[in-house]
Structure formats: structure tokens, C-alpha cells
């Protein structure tokens, strides 16, 4: 029997706003535990929530990027449950009226495009972070109240590869809308999987399990592969898949049962009484749409159609938002799209990989890069020299012009100076003139070499060649 996997993903994404969802304390990562908190984050009795406007803006950005319908009447609910990482004993979320509904994201798997339908996007707040030890647990409230958006797909995903492509794409959306670092390994993007299987062709859904808190895209894929095989085996053995919550054991690459969902948890949702419904200003919402950064997909298209880059070059550029942003900034001042791309993907990326640093950590700016490209264009420096300059800029941060001057790299393109120099060289190399006249082209190469030697490589090769040929011909006649 062949089975089909039915997968739905729930993705939580921490928003990189300055302050928390409902409190003024800062959003941070990796700070000393319990130093970035106030009474609200610890749910001291008597506190009240104040909604973070920026978080709403960020949520709306993602809604637009995912082609969702936006509910301009914001409403929040309480989700009631007791847990030590949930200081209020309830979470403020949007159960009944999520800010975004009915969106989609197109993914490409094996060269085929597939549209993944997205059911909802809602805003909520993060819980505190717990550290469990043998005989005690520690709680870090720094994370408590960080703004989250949760994005839930329809059960539209059919394989681990699709899930992986969807997550890659979604991550790109978070990065390109500039709302989150979306680092799965640091927990700013987290994924839960709902998965069931059914015989191919069947319309009925099987019993699903939920796999919680995956922290990398490859784990998601591995978990899906393991879990669908596990369910398949149970069914083929005549057993029943239990509705349960599982986790992924990273070492054994297996899913492990956490708890059985005997009855659906009773969260006793009800409208949050301390946040009355908020009617968003329509123009404000429209302005957010207007100012939405250009998404990766559109950028790729522009790079190919307008800038004449190859598909693979365009794809490589957009795979890192900072690279793509850098590229866009660079080509604002210079229309040598291809050279800019080659330098970035070649020299710059190579340098970053070698040093294992990010673009931001170097001293290179888009302005410096376009300046370098301009010098190449004007034949002030050769492309070989350009690479040297580029590396110097990245390490030392000096202006390209200064580096060129310091290193004496400036090309000699002055015809008078070069004519004088070539004449001198020809005077000293009678033999080469004779070789040339007898048809030995090799002589030209030798003579150019001599010019370069005299000028320490600064002679403009193109002009040198032209002049040399002209002067040689004069002497031969």
C-alpha cells in the first residue's frame, strides 16, 4: 500500500521590535537571565497589557507578504492554562479573530511550483524560557512577552521536502519583511509539525500526531520522514496511530512520545477584557503595504529581466538578504550590474567564507564597491588590481581611492608619457622590431612586458597595446 503524507505546519516567529508585545521592556537575546524584565513580564498582580504598535506593523508586513486578508479590527483573547513558563497563567493571543487569514506561499520542489495555502496569522506573546535540571528548574523571564506571530498552514504539505521548501521560503519572508532574525537555532523561529498519513487516493484523514519545537529545517525534514514511516509501520501492522504530542530526538533522529492528547485541551478562551477591540486606521495599514520592502521573488525577477544576471546568479544573490540589499544599494550608483554581481558573489563572498564573518562585519560599503567598479570602468585599475583593492577595503576600511594611491596602482593612460616610454624601449630593442617585421607577433608580447616592467604594471594595457602597435608600424615602414 502506498501512503500519502498530510502535513500542516505551525510556525512561531519572534518579532525584532524594540520592546515587548505588551510591555515596555526591551526585546533581547542572550542577555543575562532576568535582567531585561519589568513587573509586566513577570505578571505581578495588577499589571495591564499595552499593545506594541510596531509589532502590529510587523505582523501586517508579513500578512501582505503572504497575500493574506487583513482584519483591521484587532481583537485579542485569553488562552488560559497553567504552566511555570507562563507567568500570567494565560497567554494573550488572537484565537477568534486572527489579524491575517487566507494567504499562500508558492514553493518550488523538483522544479515544480506548488502553492501552499496558509490558514491564519495571529499575534501573541512568548513564554518565559525554562532550564530543567535534575532536581530543580530555572526560569528566564527575559523572553517572557516577546512579540510572536504564529502562522498556520492548511494541511497542504505532502512531503518533508515540501515542508523544508516552505520553511526556507517563509524564513526568507521574515527576513525580507525585516521583522525577525528568524534564526531557528536560536529559537526566534520555531516550528511544530502536524502529520498524519493515509492510503493514496483516500479522502479521509488519518489520526495525526504533533511534533513540537523543531529547531532547524533539516530536523523538520528528518522528523517528518521518521514519523511518516513510524505511522506507516503501525498501520501496516494493523495498529492504531495515537493522537499524541511528540518531540524530535536529535541524536537518534527519531520522534519520541511526550504526552497523549486524550481530550483536546480546554483553554477556556475568552476576549481579553483589558484590550478593547482596536479599529486600525486604514491609511496606516495601506502605508505599511506601500512601504513593504521588495520580496525575494520579485528581486530575483528584476535581477534577471532588468539587470541581465543569470538565473543562478540572481538566486545566489537573494539567498542572503544582506547580500541582496548590498547589491541593490550598489547598483543604485552604478549600472555595471554584472560586474557588481561578480565581485559580490566572487571576491566578497569568498572573503566572507574564508574569514567566516558576515558582510556587516567588514568595512565594505555599497558606495566603496560602486567606486571600485567605476575605476575599473575608467580603466584606472585593472580587474586584477580591483580584487586587491576590494580585499584591502574589507580588512582596513580605507577609501578605495586612498588604497590605489598608496599602493601606486593608478594606471598610466597618458598617451604622451606612454609614447615617450615606448620609444625608449623600442630604441633599446632593435631585435624585437626586426622580429615584428618578419611576422613574429610574439615580439609584441615581449615589448608590452617591457613597458609593464618599467611602469611596475601601471601602464594601461589597452592603450599600451594600441600605441606599441602604431609605433612599431611607423618604425618598420
Amino acid at each position, binding site marked *: 500500500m502506498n501512503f500519502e503524507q498530510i502535513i500542516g505546519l505551525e510556525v512561531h516567529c519572534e518579532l525584532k521590535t524594540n520592546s515587548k508585545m505588551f510591555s515596555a521592556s526591551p526585546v533581547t537575546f542572550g542577555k543575562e537571565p532576568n535582567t531585561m524584565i*519589568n*513587573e509586566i513580564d*513577570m*505578571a*505581578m*498582580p*495588577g*499589571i*495591564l*497589557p*499595552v*499593545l506594541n504598535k510596531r509589532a502590529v506593523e510587523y505582523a501586517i508586513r508579513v500578512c501582505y507578504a503572504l497575500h493574506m486578508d487583513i482584519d483591521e479590527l484587532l481583537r485579542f483573547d*485569553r488562552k*488560559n492554562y*497553567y*504552566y*511555570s513558563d507562563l*507567568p*500570567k*497563567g*494565560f497567554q494573550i493571543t488572537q484565537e477568534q479573530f486572527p489579524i491575517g487569514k487566507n494567504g499562500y506561499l508558492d514553493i518550488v520542489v523538483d522544479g515544480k511550483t506548488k502553492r501552499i495555502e496558509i490558514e491564519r496569522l495571529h499575534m501573541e506573546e512568548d513564554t518565559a524560557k525554562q532550564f530543567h535540571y535534575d532536581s530543580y*528548574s530555572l*526560569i528566564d*523571564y527575559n523572553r517572557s512577552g516577546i512579540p510572536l506571530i504564529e502562522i498556520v498552514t492548511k494541511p497542504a504539505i505532502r512531503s518533508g521536502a515540501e515542508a523544508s521548501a516552505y520553511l526556507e521560503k517563509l524564513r526568507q519572508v521574515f527576513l525580507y519583511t525585516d521583522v525577525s532574525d528568524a534564526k531557528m537555532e536560536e529559537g526566534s523561529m520555531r516550528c511544530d509539525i502536524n502529520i498524519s498519513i493515509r492510503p493514496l487516493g483516500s479522502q479521509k484523514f488519518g489520526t495525526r500526531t504533533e511534533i513540537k519545537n523543531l529547531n532547524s529545517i533539516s530536523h523538520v525534514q528528518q522528523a517528518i520522514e521518521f514519523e511518516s514511516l513510524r505511522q506507516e509501520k503501525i498501520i501496516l501492522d494493523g495498529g492504531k496511530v495515537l493522537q499524541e504530542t511528540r518531540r524530535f530526538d536529535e541524536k537518534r533522529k527519531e520522534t519520541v512520545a511526550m504526552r497523549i492528547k486524550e481530550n483536546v485541551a*480546554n*483553554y*477556556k478562551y*475568552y476576549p481579553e*477584557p*483589558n*484590550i*478593547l477591540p482596536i479599529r486600525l486606521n486604514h491609511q496606516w495599514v495601506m502605508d505599511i503595504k506601500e512601504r513593504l520592502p521588495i520580496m525575494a521573488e520579485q528581486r530575483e525577477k528584476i535581477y534577471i529581466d532588468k539587470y541581465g544576471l543569470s538565473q543562478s546568479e540572481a538566486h545566489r544573490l537573494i539567498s542572503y538578504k544582506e547580500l541582496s540589499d548590498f547589491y541593490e544599494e550598489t547598483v543604485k550608483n552604478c549600472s555595471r550590474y554584472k560586474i557588481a554581481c561578480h565581485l559580490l558573489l566572487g571576491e566578497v563572498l569568498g572573503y566572507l567564507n574564508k574569514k567566516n564573518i558576515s558582510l556587516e562585519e567588514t568595512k565594505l560599503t555599497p558606495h566603496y564597491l560602486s567606486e571600485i567598479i567605476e575605476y575599473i570602468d575608467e580603466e584606472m585599475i585593472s580587474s586584477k588590481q580591483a580584487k586587491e583593492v576590494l580585499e584591502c577595503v574589507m580588512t582596513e576600511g580605507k577609501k578605495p581611492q586612498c588604497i590605489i594611491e598608496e599602493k601606486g596602482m593608478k594606471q598610466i593612460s597618458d598617451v604622451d608619457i606612454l609614447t615617450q616610454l615606448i620609444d625608449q624601449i623600442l630604441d633599446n630593442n632593435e631585435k624585437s622590431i626586426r622580429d615584428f617585421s618578419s611576422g613574429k607577433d610574439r615580439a609584441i608580447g615581449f615589448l608590452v612586458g617591457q613597458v609593464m616592467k618599467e611602469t611596475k604594471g601601471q601602464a594601461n594595457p589597452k592603450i599600451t597595446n594600441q600605441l606599441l602597435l602604431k609605433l612599431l608600424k611607423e618604425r618598420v615602414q
Partner: protein
Amino acid sequence: MMIQYSIEELHQLLQLNDFDSKMYYDELFQEAEFQQKKLNAFVTITKEKAYKDLKKADFISLLSGIPYVLKDNYNTKGIRTTASSLMLEDYIPIYNAHVVDLLNQQGSCLIGKSSMDELAMGGTNQSALTGIVYNPWDRTRIAGGSSGGSAALVASGVVPFALGSDTGDSIRKPAGYCGVVGFKPTWGRISRYGLIPYASSLDHVGAFTRNVRDMAIVIETLAGHDEKDMTSSIREVPHYLENLNDNIKGLKIGVLKSISDEIIDIEVKENFDSIICKLQGLGAVVEDITMPSNLMKAILPTYTIIANAEATSNHACLDGIKYGNRQDGETIDEIILHSRTHGFSHYIKRRFILGNLALATENQERMFKKAQKVRRLIVEELNRIYEDYDVILTPNGRGIAPKVNEIVNNYLYDDHVILESHLCLANLAGLPALSLPSGFVDGMPISVHLMGRIFEEQTVFNVAYALENILDFKNQYSREG
């Protein structure tokens, strides 16, 4: 004896060069300790802090240097705030409630935190951790609740004003029992930030004073938008004191017959009728109005469901994990379970169970959501009345304060439940409401209840002011025993 002054009187005294404010406070604390033995109204007396604040007071603003008491559900930074619950027995807040900050800015001097029903849930003050609060007029009787301590301390003359909180009638009922002015403004008029909640959509910050002018002063100070409370209104705050006007000619007052017809005590009835006559004498147009009886019957169940549902999640933070009285357990669930089992009284747990029942998925439609719908109907009905009337007048409950040994746990099932419980109409609709002393029965004070349109605090103050001026109970306090 120098105490028992009103805010305005005391303000004038404090501004005199030869007035010894320190000596005034010495006497005040003597009296406070004396009354504490009699009434058991304080949870904490904050003597040291009061003297410190007094030193800083410049007596320029009306409330500068004026002593006051806070119900023990207002967070006070560095001062134990118990909400009269075992769960918070040792809780010392790290922040001030917004209204506490406002009073600090005015230079008012907090002299203590007052006893209340546990977590403000109750009307008798019998569930307080520190025990029952006695009525200053008769110590065999209760002060009422849930803001019983604050009511008793104003009624006994210790302080000219005290803050309470009002979710169903928790200011107005004890105010009535103790013979002082009790008021809660429109929901959203005063920030609730830092008030340990009971039920957020029904909770109000409010106060006790011994006259209406003082109430106008206090409410004017506390009212206004607070960026920490999204539900606090951005409407400008009127100058209640300056605008106070006892000319109420032509004002339309509706007497809610559905309530006043329920009065059984003949003296209470006579008193209520006499107030109607007095209002007519003042030139007000007083007419009978009614509300559908099925809606009247629905008031208490509606209130009970909403209040307890909200309370159950509002108090979910009291789990013994981050603060609160923690009990041991093998697992986190056990710690929470044991802490909450230990930390709350039987009465509170009963309410939590009711709240949870109403919110449970399988019941929510016919309980919580239905209550929300009925609440809407009640509000619509009241709005209809307010199309024709400026103020609604009712008796402030059934009558005088019950004897301590008369209170029974299930007083909710009282035969005259509508009469007793209708004050929560003002909470369901968020209306400004005031209880004003109107007379005495068996030597105990009784009150009438005035309820105005939302954000029309001034109208309520004016009616109360006009009445107060022709009654004999302005600035009254009890010197019993």
C-alpha cells in the same frame, strides 16, 4: 482631638504657619492605633513612610500633606500588599499602582493599607486574612465589603479619604453601611494599573470621603488617561470641584421602581420616599421608571458568571512560582496545585470553580457567552432610560449593616436578592455611581444610590451635593465606644 477634618478644612490648616502638622500626625496615628483595636480595619500601618512623605509635602495642592488609606489591593512599592489573601501574605510589590503615583505626586501621605474581602471577592469583609472589620457605628455589626477597611477608617474619622475598589458594589455597599460617601466613576475614567484585579471589565478605582466636595477633589486628581492602561479614557477630565453646583432644577431623576418596590423595612422605605420629596423640593423632576423583571432577575447571574470567569484567569498568576505563598510539590503542576489549594480560602475556590465552569468549552456558549449577551441587553435597557433621565435613584441596598453573627455564607440566595445586588448594574454598564448617606435606622446609617450616564460624573456629584446640603449627614463620623 484634631482629626476628623475634611480635605478642604485640613488643607487650610496645613497652610497656616502656626499649624503643627507633625503633632497632627502624632495624634492621627494614636487614633489610628486606637481605632485599629476597635475596628480591625488596617492590614498595615505605614507610620514611618507617612512621616517621611509629610516632610516633603509643601501643602500647596489640595491633597498635599493629606493623610489617606489604600485598600490593600493597590500595589505599593516596597510596602506589603496582601489583598487580604494568604496567597499574598508576604508579597511586597516592586511597583506602584498608577493612582498611588498620582497621590504621591500630590504629596498625599499614605498612613496605611486597609483590610478587604480576600482578593476583593465578597461583600462582608469576612474573608479577609486579618479577620472581619467592625462597623464604627456598632461593633457588633460588619463594615461590609469588599472595601470594608477603607470605609470604616473614613467613617471613624481617622482619614478624610481612602481608596477602595468596586467590582459589584464593593465601595458603595460598605459606604452605605458605614455612613460615608462612596463613589466609583465611569469605567475607564481612572487607570486600573496596579490595582490587583478581581474582574477587569467590572473593576473600578473609587474612593470614600465624608462629603461630596472632597469626593470631587479626589476623583479629579485620580481621573485621566494613563498610557499603562489601554482602557483608560483620553477624554479631558472636567474640574469637578469647580463645577460643583447644587442647583439641580429641571434635572430628570428616574426612580427605579423595580428596586425600590422591594424595600421591606418600613423605615428604609420612609427614608427613601423622603429623599424623593427632597429632590422634588430642589426642583428636580422625579419620575418612576421600571426595567423588565426578567432582566432584573438576570442581573445577579450575569454578574456572577462574568465576574468569576474573569477572576479565575486574573488570579491565575497567583501560582506560587514567581511570588506568592509557595507550597512544595514533586512536579510543577503539583507545586501550583498545592500553592493554590493552600493559598485561597474555600470561598475563593468556590468562585474559581464557578468561573472555570462558565468558561469551559462545553459550557461557554450557554454560560459565559450568554452572560455577555445579557450584559449587552442590560446596558441597552439602561441606555434607553438615560435617553430620558439624567440620574437613576435607588436605595443603596436593603438597609443597615448586618450583625456579625447574622452573615451567612450563602447570602447570595437571599430572598431579596435584587434589592441587595442591583448596585452591580453600574459595573455591568460602567456607569458613575455614588452612595450618599440619607438617614439612620436603629442608630445605623443608611444611604441612597445615584447612578449617572457614562462620563457624567459631574451630574451625579451635583445631585449628591444638592442633597447633602439639605441633609444632616455631611462630614459625619462615628465616635462609638
